[in-house]
């Protein structure tokens, strides 16, 4: 029982990375009807930008002799990194996706893949092949509840990601921009006629998705403090699976499916030998998609669309 609860905690942490990244995929999909395959690498870029900012802030604090508390640096790092990474996302939209809006969707997918490769290789060329270790901004503390052990980092990761999702929800439901996004995802053709420019909404969507990915990157760096240029590839593709599983274009579905994927992976690894994790986890996903071909919250109306 204790082990079960412990695994739930681990799965919540692991699932929040998937959920945060899957949200970005899903949001872009709901507006532009295509998946941004560079998203996994935006996650990586976000983590690296966060690393740069955290190191700079630590250095700055040491230089002026002011002992900035770790949590303050962490908050600043997350905010700044989200800010800068959203520009990376907007840039990618501008050069990679806007010219291809009328093109076959597979072309945009290939462009995304190639931008991802450029980001990885560019990073490798800039920083070299050495792995960087993310600075430990907050001291690790372990709390014991009954038989389960929870570190403060785990609580922080789950809380931050949940609150980010809540903020996103508020933004989409309450703000004017969010309303424009919802309208755009409802009818891509008619909304531009109503005076809402797709050229403003699409970059905004990319920016929000990238900011969430950057937050996920920093949280990931807190939990697993080794950064390498290819860290986003596998995580990105798996979050893509989660985004589809939730139903493409469904924000709630993406978040839930992200957590579900985390749960499946952690619990499969707990019950079965961990080398079997991918086989069983993806067989479950195959089964789910065979019986619910449009994911949890997806709509069947777009079966005619092709990637």
């Amino acid at each position, binding site marked *: 029982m204790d082990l079960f609860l412990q695994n739930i905690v681990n799965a919540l942490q692991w699932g929040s990375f998937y959920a945060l990244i899957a949200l970005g995929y899903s949001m872009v999909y709901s507006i532009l009807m295509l*998946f941004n395959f560079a998203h996994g690498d935006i996650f990586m870029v976000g983590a690296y930008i966060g690393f740069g900012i955290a190191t700079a802030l630590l250095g700055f604090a040491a230089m002026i002799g002011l002992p900035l508390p770790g949590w303050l640096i962490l908050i600043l790092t997350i905010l700044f990194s989200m800010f800068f990474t959203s520009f990376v996302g907007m840039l990618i939209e501008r050069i*990679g996706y806007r*010219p*291809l809006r009328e*093109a*076959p969707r*597979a*072309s*945009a*997918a*290939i*462009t995304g*893949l*190639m*931008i991802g*490769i*450029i980001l*990885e*290789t*560019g990073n*490798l*060329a800039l920083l070299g092949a050495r792995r960087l270790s993310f600075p430990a901004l907050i001291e690790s503390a372990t709390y014991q509840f009954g038989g389960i052990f929870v570190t403060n980092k785990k609580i922080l990761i789950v809380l931050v990601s949940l609150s980010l999702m809540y903020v996103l929800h508020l933004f989409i439901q309450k703000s004017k921009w969010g309303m424009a996004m919802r309208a755009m995802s409802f009818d891509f053709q008619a909304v531009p006629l109503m005076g809402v420019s797709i050229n403003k909404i699409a970059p905004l969507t990319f920016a929000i998705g990238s900011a969430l990915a950057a937050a996920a990157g920093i949280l990931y760096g807190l939990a697993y403090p080794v950064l390498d240029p290819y860290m986003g*590839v*596998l995580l990105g*593709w798996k979050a*893509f*699976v989660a985004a*589809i*599983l939730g139903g*493409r274009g469904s924000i709630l579905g993406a978040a839930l499916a992200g957590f579900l994927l985390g749960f499946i992976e952690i619990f499969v690894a707990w019950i079965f030998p961990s*080398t*079997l*994790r*991918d*086989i069983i986890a*993806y*067989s479950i*996903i*195959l089964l789910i*998609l*065979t019986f619910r*071909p*449009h*994911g949890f919250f997806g709509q069947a109306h*777009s*079966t*005619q*669309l*092709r*990637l």
Partner: protein
Amino acid sequence: METKQETPQRAYKNLLARYKAFSNRIPLLGWLCGGIGAVLIEYFLGDLVSYYLGLPKVPVLFGCLIMLKKPILIPGAVGYLLLVYGLPVFFIARALATPANKLAAFLAKGPITIAALVHLGLLYAILHIWTDMSDYRVLVLKLTMIAVMLTLSLNVINGYMGEFSCSHPGFMAIGAYTTSTITLWLFANDKLFGEALLPAAIGPFFFPLALIAGGLVAALGALVIAIPSFRTRGDYLAIISLAFLFIVKSIIENLEFVGGPRGMSSQPNYSNLPMVFIVMVLCIWIINNFVRSTLGKALCAVRDNELAAESMTVNTRKTKMVTFMFGAFWAGVAGGLFAHVLRYVNPGSFGIQRLAEILAMLYFGGLNSVTGSIVGAVSINLLSEALRPLEIFKWIIIPLLLILVMLYRPTGLIAFTEFKPKELMRSKE
């Protein structure tokens, strides 16, 4: 004043027109003869020419490697290219234009098979002589031909059927492992399967059967994707195929008797150049016939509108299933060849990276076109070899190139054109 400004343009136009008039009369046969002349010159005089041009040795891959490594040698390398490849090809092709045209006209009267065999024989001769110079060329050429097979078979699924299948490395892995298991088990003494069961001498003759077995097992694996594809398409099928790729890779990692994550090594050296060449030609021929058959037309109908196709009596289920299995079969065969070229496979070589590579080749060359697939596979493969001295920047330049192609020609360089061997081989007089 105006005439002065236009002069260079006019000269250029004149040159272009003259070049066109010059090359329009030469049939493919003539170019092939020119190619043979060029590679023979390189074979016998390559050392001499490169010595006089100040090159350390014969440039291996059209001088690209030397040019990028030592820019000071660029004039020498360009001179070498002109002297050994450019000029001989042009002059021999021009000189032989008349007899080549007569021969092409004569061949056109007979069955197309014979004409094709003559052309392929010449092409093979060129490749054989060219690769005789170094082992590196052999390896590059074999991998390029395998890439052509992979791209072409993916084109059947992604281009002609219009799905977005991500499972090709998975099919390739199935083929590679099946074929390697058969050859290692039957013909090689190795640590995984023990002593050889059959004498090694009959191995090369048995190898095509092993390849077919690999292809068939891959085709069986394709059922996992084909059956869900009856109900869904597009993104969901992309995910199903992606999950299939993860599952295949993970299963292989967990199978201890094929070496698990360490992989299999010391496959016998059965994938020699003629073998790979023959299989590739068969692959191109069969796939070209497949996409031009009734089934191929049905495939395009399914791509454009499934409901309409269904109501026009196209059996969509059968079409999809056959296509997936067909594409997977050739991917499996290509995987088998790949395993015996490198003589080492491990699960890591069939991951997302390989997927990105095959997709890049496919979309660079162009969808729905056999020619496009060949062009894409050859150009991306040779490019990635030629840019090797740039090390890591290679993986910035190639994706950039691909993005540019996508921006300006979203369906690829040569898309939606048919491959017409007859047209290609006709006499130009």
